[in-house]
């Protein structure tokens, strides 16, 4: 094992590592659900970029990157979007329910 050379892959790898930290910070410290969801997506972006770095370093056989991690990331991005869509709908319903029960309290 030796220190990685400073190339684009290493640079973006460090960026991905920082993004994971930022996302985690947001998830832990935010009370508002939608902000947590945003932070969760920031974290996801960082994890995907780390996969991209693995792919870039695995370049070979005439490909600019290892296709397998890239295919994994594409699946990941789509599934992350679906999870976000479901979570958003849950948050909306929860807010609507809270509003309705607040109304009951007042009446």
């Amino acid at each position: 094992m030796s220190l990685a050379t400073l190339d684009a892959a290493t640079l973006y790898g460090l960026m991905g590592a920082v993004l994971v930290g930022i996302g985690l910070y947001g998830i832990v410290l935010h009370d508002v659900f939608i902000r947590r969801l945003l932070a969760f997506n920031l974290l996801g972006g960082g994890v995907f970029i780390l996969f991209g770095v693995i792919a870039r370093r695995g370049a070979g056989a005439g490909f600019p990157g290892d296709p397998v991690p890239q295919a994994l990331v594409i699946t990941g991005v789509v599934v992350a979007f679906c999870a976000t869509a479901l979570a958003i709908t849950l948050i909306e319903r929860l807010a609507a329910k809270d509003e309705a029960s607040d109304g009951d309290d007042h009446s």
Partner: protein
Amino acid sequence: MLGLALDLLIAALVIGVALWTVRTRDDFAAIVGFVAYGLLLTLAWARLAAYDVALTEAAIGGGVTGVILLRASIRLKPVATARKPIGARILVGLLCAAISAALAAVVLLPMTPAPSLAIEVRTHLASTGLGNPIAGVLMAYRALDTFLETVVVLLALFGVWSLTPDAAWGGRPAMAVPAAAFGPLPLFGRLLIPVGIVIGVYIVWVGADAPGGKFQGATILAAMWILAMMAGLTQAPSIGRWRLRLLLAAGPIVFLAIGLAGIPLAGAFLAYPEALAKPLILLIEVALTLSIAATLGLLVAGPPDVTPGVEP
């Protein structure tokens, strides 16, 4: 060297926008920050030569994810919350920094030689008849994952629909824009949507041999559908219509049928007979594109909130 300067600038901007998104007080501002984050990540993926992923990020990351978050920001009331005490912020910050540092160490001390399946992919790509290695991986080696992924997309829509208020069940999602904001939107929609559909189909088509593919193209098509709803050119369909449900299920059904046919014909579930690999993969891609585009569009539109039979 020049390239590295560009990479450094992109990385700094991504981190800056991410920090801003987490720290800002205004929810709408945070969503704007997230859309910017998606745009910049696309550049990062392009610089990593992961062009397929860059296309996905451009379509999904900033585009439809941003729009779905905006939908929520209209419906949710802003909640005022106090900042956490400084001690908690420092403690959490330190822990998160430690995790980042550990990941950074992994990045800085890579395995040599780097693990890679690129050579295996190159050896077997020819048997799929495809030129794009990522499409090959998605449709051949990891066909089961891709199949399950399309089912997950559909399940997410079931989840969203199951959160429909009782009164609106069987109705359709509302995507109305107030008349004051209409302005040039309908004209814009009429001109842009046909162009967008052509681009979406093109991205699916080139996906066989060059970066592109069904998820990216389907996302563009879904975005055009949503745009038509926002511009008031069309309404979201009622979720009870059987033709809509058939469209949603067609992709996974075709995929499953061809996969099952692979057991007698090619010896394994989701295996393709050598001679027919490319036409079969194309058939699956076309069916999946239509289903995924419809599913993603309805995911963005959300659960029905217009009671059936009642027009607003």
